């Protein structure tokens, strides 16, 4: 076998330009696969991280009456459990209200959370520093659609637990920048103690609790626990879909590269019949000769992997460090990342290399099979077969 590799190496280097054209194309496919997969897992990881950090926490215990996709359920979908803090649960209460920027009614959701909370990245701690009577926090999307700036005051109206109207002026104490529209658009964040107070609800009343520690399950009557994995499942699904989409793309690119190898193989077997005949005359088994030619074909993929890694490394490293700007796209509550940092695992490199080598070997083998059917005498004579 060593001989086969040696021969293959010499032959390929000897063929010059033809070899390098094949290798470059295959290396391109290699780079693209690694890069795209890296981008995909980078997106997946970051989107999940952002969603976990800004919205999901380690898991959520939701009141059974509450459906995040049905705003009608907010009125009644809340409740209370005893001493949630002892179980590492951070209450979040959602109520409905309206604000009146420019004399026009703007329906909103009031979201209460403890300013000392550590489970989410929403900077509710800013509320503690504000000197305003009623400081609130809004996201940049909300700020834009309601035409509010930091320091602006606006009248807010809501109802207490009995349905009695209440209204006061709130002050925008801060505007946060999050990639998650779901916790931003139409949401007004405030100190949950304040929200309990103004709605007359008892302490710890919540629409859902966010868990500070990862739990698989919780058994609380009237509440359902959603673990972190289930809450970010949709991101995996999206990433998976994207991956399949990308597979089609680089599958096509790989197909082209393999086509080139195939063509090269067909020609080289056609032109080197005498050589094949000689091998057989020298006593090599046909299988051995097939192996020599197959190895020669698959050698392209080894070259390509090496070239791909060498040429791709600076590119991969550069993007992993600086990320790729993605802009800001609203996509139905899914985290929208402004910058994606590709993540390349060892597994990715290994599996991509394996994919390239195996597929190249297969296409090299296909034309080589012909050798097995050759008449050695004719081959030796160089007679076309």
């Amino acid at each position, binding site marked *: 076998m060593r001989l086969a590799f040696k021969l293959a190496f010499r032959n390929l280097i000897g063929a010059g330009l*033809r070899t390098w054209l094949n290798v470059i194309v295959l290396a391109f496919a290699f780079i693209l696969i690694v890069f795209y997969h890296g981008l995909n897992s980078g997106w997946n990881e970051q989107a999940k991280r952002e969603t976990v950090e800004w919205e999901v926490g380690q898991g959520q215990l939701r009141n059974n009456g509450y459906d995040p996709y049905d705003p009608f359920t907010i009125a009644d979908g809340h409740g209370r459990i005893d001493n949630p803090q002892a179980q590492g649960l951070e209450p979040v209460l959602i109520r409905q209200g309206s604000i009146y920027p420019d004399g026009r009614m703007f329906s909103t959701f009031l979201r209460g959370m403890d300013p000392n909370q550590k489970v989410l990245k929403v900077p509710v701690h800013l509320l503690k520093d504000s000197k305003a009577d009623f400081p609130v926090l809004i996201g940049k999307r909300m700020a834009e659609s309601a035409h509010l700036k930091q320091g602006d005051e606006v009248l807010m109206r809501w109802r207490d637990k009995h349905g009695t109207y209440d209204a006061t002026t709130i002050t925008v104490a801060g505007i946060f920048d999050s990639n998650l529209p779901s916790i931003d658009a139409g949401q007004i964040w405030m100190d949950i103690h304040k929200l309990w107070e103004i709605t007359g609800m008892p302490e710890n009343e919540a629409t859902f609790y966010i868990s500070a520690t990862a739990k698989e399950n919780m058994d609380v009557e009237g509440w359902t626990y959603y673990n972190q994995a289930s809450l970010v499942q949709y991101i995996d699904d999206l990433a998976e879909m994207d991956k399949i989409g990308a597979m089609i793309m680089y599958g096509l690119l790989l197909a082209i590269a393999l086509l080139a190898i195939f063509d090269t193989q067909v020609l080289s077997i056609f032109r080197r019949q005498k050589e094949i005949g000689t091998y057989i005359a020298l006593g090599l088994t046909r299988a051995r000769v097939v192996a020599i030619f197959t190895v020669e074909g698959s050698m392209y993929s080894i070259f390509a992997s090496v070239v791909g890694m060498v040429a791709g490394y600076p590119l991969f490293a550069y993007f992993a460090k600086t990320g790729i*700007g993605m802009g800001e796209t609203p996509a139905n509550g899914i985290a929208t990342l402004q910058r994606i940092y590709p993540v390349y695992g060892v597994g990715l490199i290994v599996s991509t290399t394996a994919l390239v080598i195996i597929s190249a070997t297969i296409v090299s083998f296909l034309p080589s099979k012909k050798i097995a059917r050759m008449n050695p005498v004719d081959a030796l004579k160089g007679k076309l077969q």
Partner: protein
Amino acid sequence: MIKFLLKGILGDKNRSVLPIIIITIGVSLTIILSGYMRGVMGDMIDQNARFDTGHMKIMSRAYAENKAQLPNDLALLGVAQLKEELKSDYPEIKWVDRIKFGGLIDVPDGENASKGQGPAAGMAMDIFNPESGEDARMNLTSSIVKGRLPSKPREALVGSDFAEKLNIKIGDEVTYMGTTMNGSMTFENFIVSGTIRFGMPAMDKGAIVIDISDARQLLDMEDAVGEMLGYLPGGVYDDEEVAPIVKSFNARYANDTDEYAPEMVALRDQNGLSSYLDMVDYFAALFVAIFVFAMSMVLWNTGLLGGLRRYQEFGIRLALGEPKGHIYRTLIYEAILIGIIGSIIGTAIGLVGVYLLQKYGINIGDLMKDSSMMMPTVLRGKFTPELLYIGFIPGLFAMVLGNMLSGIGIYKRSTASLFKELEV
């Protein structure tokens, strides 16, 4: 001369069939991949354009200011006249009317009460008129889970999750309740002609899709529209085409102080799409360039191989006294012919492929059975005019280049050595 070469190409399978097959495959793959890339990468932009932003959008200024709240009370009036003007000023742009509206859907229980209610996320567009292209643009037909598109007044599509929850069947009646443009309460029964799934939970829970004529009546919006979307003829967003239109249109109303005067916004300036747009352009172009380059390499190689294959023949021809230059030229001419034949066939096959990709897409739904999320699982290609010529770059030029390079061998080698290739 060409006839002679063509005869040769057609007669000698060895010299023609394999290269043509390879060029055909290569060119069609290039085109399919480019179309696919454009389709998938531009999908987000395209989806935004089709569903929400248009390539450009006209709203009243007041509506634009408050558009997060679907403020139909601030809708644009005088639509018919505005459309006339638009038609004469920008004849190539396709304008469509859209009305989004909120409200409530009430499902009767067959007797005198309701079996359930839910918030409505209403959308109205020109469904009845097939020329509007709204069905394809909004992907309605392919998003239908059960039933069919509304085909006559007072038929509606409702969100499939909502329908499931309240056990609504095709042909059932639901009542929409909401407020008109003027603030009046409005009620209307709609026969559910189908259920639809857009893959967005909020929509699938409360969507109601009706024809624009029904919405106009329902919401008292005769000659009014919430949003008017404009689409470029090619179906692909192009900043350079849109920007001057937006500029000239808005300039006309620059001195108008009416807060309900129309205002045009380009896709780029909506939904924060600008940077994404730049990125897509960049990446799609990059990938297509990589692909064309890769394909060129392959076909160059094929050209090289094609030349090498025929050294024997050249040897004979030299022996017969044909000048080297002539052999070289015929080689190139042949390469051009083969390149053209392969590229044409390849482009044709590729375009059919892209067309199929665009029309049917690749449904990867089955590959994602475990998915808990609803989403469109069809990947689609996109036809762009560049596909018509993009295949010729690798197909023709790379092929010819390859042949040219391998043909140099004719000059390098002596007649004797070429002739030697003949030895039997």
